[in-house]
């Protein structure tokens, strides 16, 4: 079970969190004309990299904040965690 450092609460076990997928996905702006392909990429298409992955986790059984976690998908090493508004990298 992963040990995730919530930037608001500190180190907590994985079972307090829900996984939220790729954190680099940006929702297209509202009211903006957009092609079918761009929309499909946003809704459905995700990379599944082996290695470093910036992803969202929701501290559902804690502070209820969405946070960003930089994790290695093959070793589960967590390099860093960030608040939702923090810039990464």
């Amino acid at each position, binding site marked *: *079970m*992963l040990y995730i450092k919530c930037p608001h609460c500190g180190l907590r076990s994985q079972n307090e969190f829900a996984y939220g997928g790729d954190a680099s996905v940006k929702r297209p702006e*509202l009211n903006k004309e*957009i092609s*079918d392909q761009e929309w499909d990429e946003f809704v459905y298409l995700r990379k599944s990299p082996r290695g470093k992955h910036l992803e969202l986790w*929701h501290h*559902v059984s804690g502070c209820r904040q969405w946070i960003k976690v930089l994790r290695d998908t093959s070793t589960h090493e967590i390099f860093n965690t960030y608040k939702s*508004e923090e810039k990464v990298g």
Partner: protein
Amino acid sequence: MRQNYRLDKIGLVNREKKLSFKFNGKKYFGYEGDTLASALIANGVHLVGRSFKYHRPRGFFGAGVDEPYAIVQLYRNGETEPNVRATEQELFEGLEAKSVNCWPSVNFDIGAINNFLNIFLPAGFYYKTFMWPRSFWYRIYEPFIRKAAGFGVASKEHDKERYEHKYEYCDLLIAGSGPSGLASAYAAAKNGARVILAEDKPRFGGSLLTSDVSINNQSGKEWADNIITELKGMTNVTVKNRAQIFGYYDHNMLVMSERVTDHLPKSEQFTPKQRLWYIRAKQVVISSGSIERPIVFGNNDTPGVVLASAAKEYMKVYGVLVGKKPIVFTNNDSAYETAIEFKKNNINPIVLDSRQDSNSEIIKEAKSLGIDIKFSHVVVAAKGYKKVKSCDIAEISEDKQNLNQIKNIECDCICVSGFWTPTIHLASQSGGKTKFKEEIDAFVPDKSKQKEVTLGSANGVFTLEETLKTSFDKGFELSKEITNNNNSQQIPKVSEKKHSKHDKFWCVPLPKGKKYKRFLDFQNDVAVSDIELAIREGYRSIEHVKRYTTLGMATDQGKTSNLNGLQLVSNIENKVVPAVGHTTFRPPYTPISIGAIVGREIGKHSKPTRKSPMHNWHEKNNAVFVDAGVWLRPRYYKRGNEGLFEASKREAENVRKNVGVCDVTTLGKIDIKGPDAAEFLNRVYTNAWLKLPVGKARYGVMLREDGIVMDDGTTTRISENHYHMTTTTAQAANVLSHLEYYLQLVWPELDVNVVSTTEQWAGAAIAGPKSRDLLQKLFPDTDVSNEGLPFMGFVEANLFGVNARIFRISFSGELAYEVNVESDNGNFMWEKIIEIGKDFDLQPYGTEALSTLRIEMGHVAGSELDGRTIPYDTGLDGLVSKKKDFIGKRSLLKKAYNEKDRQRLVGVVPLDKKTSIPEGSHLVKDPKGKLPNPKLGHISASCWSVEHNNPFSLAILKDGKNMIGSKLYAMSPLKNKTIAVEIVSSHYVDPKGERVRS
């Protein structure tokens, strides 16, 4: 009965306390401190079971966790448990156990015929034989394999025992209490670290219990006892015996299974049988020791062939002899300790040493004691069927290829030692690498991945002096990093015998003309010939060889067989062992009971049960409850002999005729506040929200980004910047997460806050033509007229001194209101409604009547919003704004979502107006059509329409819009029903919606 194999003055068992037990129906005695295995051996019982494939007789091989043979069915306090290792099960008064894998008895086992037919059961036999014909699999092969396979039977009864889970955190977790575990625990604990020390056996000390060493002029055992006593007295230390750390998971999470009362005749009340510990450790010390490995020779599975270290443990710990005419067969020095121990107890062993000569300290001692040592000699084959009676021995050539003349000598046990295999399971499970250490012919941990270190013989270090030194150092060093303290301990003085080098010899060649079975895996009956066959048939990867032959796949996970298997594969393939590599070590290290894994989360405790504040009232008034997510809700209120159908019909009819009240506390409620709340709702919902006035509610639908309906509900504007959102009971948690996602990540610029208030409000829905009259009596000071409180209106009011919110919303299609009060006042509100409602023939109604009412008015709920439907499908397309953008809108442009014959919500009535249509039935054109019969739609919800007094269903139907009036068939193969139906509008009651506005 006398314990013929019990020694008089040696061992750690308590001879003051005699315990009686039964094995295969026969009564025996043992002592407190015995294991079932040691007590049986003391009584001269050497045959305990039959082997897995050939049903060959099985005795004891080890003395602990590595035991491949002695697996029994245990009976304790009215319960039975399979797969219990007799070498680990401690004896208690009244213990009963039986042999497994034999019929009709262990002495005469019919399955043993497999032994003589074994030509038919080579490696991969099952794969080759049970493949065809296909139809035989379920009827013949599978039941046969099931009956023949496995050890013992699982109980079919509910397990009455209690199992617990515990979460713990520590600085240092130490797995194993041998010399390295004790030393590192002591050094770390004295330096202020929080330490957990776990030992899987009942006694602490590991190899110190049986080795002939001295530490600070004490025996190994005395030193261990003193350290343990001191550790137990320290507040920063937890010491646990009978506790097996069986799994090493990510981020230094380890799981330990503690057998709390398995050693007692029964568990005390409120005491668990077993406890599972989830331990998060800053550092882990793996001091799991090593397991002696066998040398492979002919018939090496015969009862009486045991590990030399086990023979020594039976003598020194339990005071039990595994035999009275022992042969000790070894390739190294450590087995001499066993020989010397025999000699000290007036038994004369013969030592066969595969080495040409050796003159180390311990061999000199053995010689001086007059022990018969034959160098360059090996055991060729054990003789005897149910017990070793003699063995063939021979001198072996220097290159270990040729045997000289074979001689038979009498013996009753063969104590075998092929050197030591470090127990690297935990280190490997942690993700760390392993490396092959030539000097010891075994793998040891290499680079750590997580924060762990392996010490002592688990790391391939076999001298006590070095083990203690590195362990004291490491315990100090690791604790210093955590505590910043600097209290180091003095390393004790050690005296031990120096060992000479072992012989890299592991398998005795077959003598000419003999076809002895030479076993590698003793639990799964995998012999040398099986591995040879697998390789001849083209299996190369060790993982494939393992699966094809089942080498190392039994419940002991190959603890005594893996390395010899690797040796064999590498010999045949002419490779070195590290090139072959080892199979993956996976948790659990030993079998763990399902009960321990499940813990307390069984039955009613498998999820929380939530009850509304009015629950006690429902209970007192004959409510029959139903699980709604985690909530318990009244399904109906039983009167007299009524069943579900009669009661729910009466309750629903009363709503249509008079007035009813329903507990709607479980609805999800979310408070939304902030200057941008209206803008946020406008983006979340498909319809327009910017112009909703204060004091008004609106029905809204929200989508996922892929255009699928996520949830629906009403949201009310309480004040300028304050909204009260309701969600369905089931989706409440998901909707909150969804809103938080958009507020925190997508539109952080919106100044809005959301919080769940589901548990803060108790809710009562009051529905029916008389609801307004009732409401007026409940709130005499409030104008609840159609003008004062119109449809979708909201007002705050006073309920006999209690603040209440009244929403004029309807789920039933009738004139209806929902009253909310703070949860603590829920029961007060409910009782007032019931009391005053008497004048209006009010009846409470449950979820079944609630469903009936919503279905017949065509109001969609979870069964239509099933994660596969878009607004159009559920008839909600009128609520989709064309002007503004919102979550999921872009997806609605998809071609498939705009097909002319797109599925849509319809009503369904059986032509006979009598037959209820099972939910889930498929709608088809031709009930006798060729399979697969094209499915046009499915029945999502069914009820007995109280308005029309006939069955009515909702369905999602292809081209539903144009299907009204057509005749189809509803087919339910599950219920074996085919019903002729007519498609009608989904609005079966009050299609113009006049009642709700009346």
